[in-house]
């Protein structure tokens, strides 16, 4: 019997050590007159990034306890669906996905109308004219390649259908990644690409990874030397020493803006609004740039190693079209690539 008792004592001790380590890094208490509240944020931001954002937010708003739930955009929307089916949406703020998802929620009266302070300083392309959501960064999807394994990097989407890249490509699953779902719709809508390009790409038998994170890892480690992936992940890996580089395809790149919106069922609208303000404030955007994101305002510079926003050819399709065709596009993608 003592054997089992000892088995447990050790993991328990180690776990409490973990806990203590965590406590010491918690944000320091600051005096504040504002009322304490708990804000629940659903987000598809990488865990470390959202943790850093919350930490910085808490420096100016120590009274708000931010509870983060991180998952892929597809997983978040599924969770929100099931929460609606059995009551109210638990989240106060959604920071994820693409504007199409927010348009849908706005149409169903799920969102609170709120234009952040300082809205005029923002890139007008990412601000919802009706004021239900605001983009928080520009996230283009690009071609990444492993510099150690690829001699002639692809420079266009069309290049990827070349037979030399057969079994060499990895890309994210649009069921999980909101950016990937959006991209599928944009590619299908783009006359130069469309279904025939997607069919040709599928013929090269790309690996469908779970989300953008694993795609960038696969390219960096060389599992598949070429990837279709959001640009900031590649910049980060390159900065950490991985042999990766970005190519901006000549046809143009689709981008999502990681919008943020507030659910109308929220109990803490003040805290939610403060969080949204923070995300697009020059303070929040400076952090975004430090986190390798392209910002939504032009007074905070741009991340190291990134081209100027104006130098990137962007695909800006009609959002209404994309929104109405996205589900079919994902179905088409799954049909072609599975």
């Amino acid at each position, binding site marked *: 019997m003592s054997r089992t008792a000892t088995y447990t004592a050790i993991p328990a001790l180690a776990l409490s050590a973990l*806990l203590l*380590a965590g406590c010491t890094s918690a944000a320091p208490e600051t005096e504040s007159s504002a009322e304490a509240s708990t804000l629940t944020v659903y987000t598809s931001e990488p*865990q470390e990034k959202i943790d850093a954002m919350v930490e910085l937010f808490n420096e100016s708003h120590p009274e708000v306890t931010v509870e*983060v739930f991180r998952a*892929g955009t597809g997983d978040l929307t599924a969770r929100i669906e099931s929460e609606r089916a059995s009551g109210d949406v638990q989240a106060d703020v959604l920071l994820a996905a693409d504007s199409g998802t927010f348009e849908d929620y706005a149409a169903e009266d799920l969102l609170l109308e709120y234009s952040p302070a300082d809205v005029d300083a923002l890139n007008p392309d990412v601000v919802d004219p009706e004021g239900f959501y605001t983009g928080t960064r520009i996230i283009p999807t690009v071609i990444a390649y492993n510099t150690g394994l690829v001699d002639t990097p692809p420079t266009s989407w069309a290049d990827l259908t070349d037979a030399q890249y057969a079994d060499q490509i990895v890309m994210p699953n649009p069921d999980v990644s909101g950016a990937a779902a959006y991209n599928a719709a944009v590619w299908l809508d783009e006359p130069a690409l469309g279904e025939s390009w997607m069919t040709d790409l599928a013929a090269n038998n790309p690996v469908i990874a*779970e989300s953008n994170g694993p795609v960038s*890892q696969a390219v960096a*480690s060389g599992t598949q030397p070429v990837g279709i992936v959001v640009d900031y992940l590649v910049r980060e890996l390159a900065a950490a020493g991985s042999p990766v580089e970005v190519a901006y395809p000549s046809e143009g790149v689709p981008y999502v803006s990681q919008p943020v919106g507030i659910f109308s069922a929220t109990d803490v609208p003040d805290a939610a609004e403060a969080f949204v303000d923070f995300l697009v404030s020059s303070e929040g955007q400076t952090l975004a740039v430090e986190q390798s994101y392209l910002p939504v305002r032009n007074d905070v510079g741009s991340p190291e190693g990134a081209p100027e926003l104006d130098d990137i050819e962007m695909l800006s399709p009609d959002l209404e079209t994309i929104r109405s065709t996205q589900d079919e596009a994902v179905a088409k993608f799954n049909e072609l690539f599975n």
Partner: protein
Amino acid sequence: MRRDGADAVRLVLWLIIAALVLVPLVAIVVLAAGDNRFGLLLEGDVLEAGINSIVSALASGLGAVLLGTAFALLLERTDLRGRRALRLIALSPLLVPPFVGAIAWIGVAGPVSPVNRAWSDAFGSPLWSIYGGDGVIFLLIVHSYPIAMLIVTAALRRIPTDLEQAARISGASATGALATVTLPLLRPAMLSSFVLVSVGNLADFGIPSIVGTPEQYVTLSTLVYRYIQSGTVDDPLSVVATVGVVLLVLAILGLVADTVLGRRRWELDASTTPPARLRLGRARPLVGTLTWLVVSALTVLPLLALVSQSLLPAPGVPLTAENVSLDNFSRVLSSPIVTEGAANSLMLAVLAGLICGIVGLAIGTVTTRTRARDNAALSAVALFPQAIPGLVIAVAWLVIAPHIGLFNTPWLILCAYVTSFLALVVQSVAAPLRSIPLVAEEAARISGATRLRALFDISWRLALPAALSGAVLVALTAVRELTLSVLLLSPGSQTLGVAIFNLQQAGAYNAASTLSLLVTVVGLVGLGLAGRSTR
């Protein structure tokens, strides 16, 4: 007979068991039967996942039994050197959660592991990639052969050596006696461990989701996860309930098979003579080296891979002295999601241990220390969840969650833990009590104690140490749990296992490896200390 307090206790226990086991399982069957989506089982995705699940379960069951039996024979019946150390090392995969093992093995045999990279450079293509169906089966074997080894070893120790000696005296060689006497006597234990392992592996989640998904090798558990998390089908709950019922039926079939096989089992009186060890003679160094190689390849190699991944800052960076850093450790240990996950896991595990300990103590004593017709039924229902995949239990709780107001709360995970792990305590309480005669309770009754009083004062005190160690076992299992936690997670209730799994899914492989290493080392050090303290 007059109704008294003991009857009230029994009634309460039945109510608890009904709430914990019967209601969820009935709910899942009712939902599946009501919506009647069974036609779906024959459709592409679900059918393919079902076949993959069954094939990987059977293949891994077979592999685990063969490997486990081979180790059991080598370590019990030969004069191999270092048997005690080998046994300890060979059992260590039991202490490593399967999903952690999967993360570790990617470092050993992933497509760009050092071995595969060197092989690619020399011969053009990787030696063997762990991604895909073969990798899933391999990892399931690695994580379940210790169970087969334990069962077969126990059976081996019960086989009387007289039989082997008789064979030897009649002229059989040592290997001949092993093959014609010992192995046939081991068959029931091998069959029983085959059934146990196969059913257990039928719905493992961690391994197929980490090494199967990248190659589109989908099993029922990863399919259910995708349906629930991403809502890729209409009305996902009714679909997963249907899948759950199928797994339930398969588990019951396994249980029936095991009972039928168990009935044909014969007990032999063990003899006191120690078994004659098979002398390996000149083959001893060779067999010894081979065994050490295999055992350390299965256990030490993945650990080394975890270490190297934890020390590197980013993928694709070569492992050289100047690239090594401990940043990953400080990063994961200060990450809120990890500390929160550890806190949640710790709280849920302690509560689950406490509840299982108390309820298990009560059920274990009532069913062994009192006489009643429903004893067998009560203990059977309490033990039943042990035989069904955790996936089914998770889906069952998910189905009833909105009706009992537990949807999206951590208490749902606690409920599922208690349902799943209660059997551990009931078993550890009931087993030793069964062999103790009821004289103490009878003495108490003669001296005027009520039945309830005798139950409290005698039976429960008698069983307390066993219940305590059972509860500890529950807490230990729950603290590293993944399957239940990942399906029932809600904002603010992510567990340690889910934190590691999410890091891995999000592509933070170095961070996931670092945490996996910490969890593994803590488990293994625990084993080492426990092994020393009992010697």
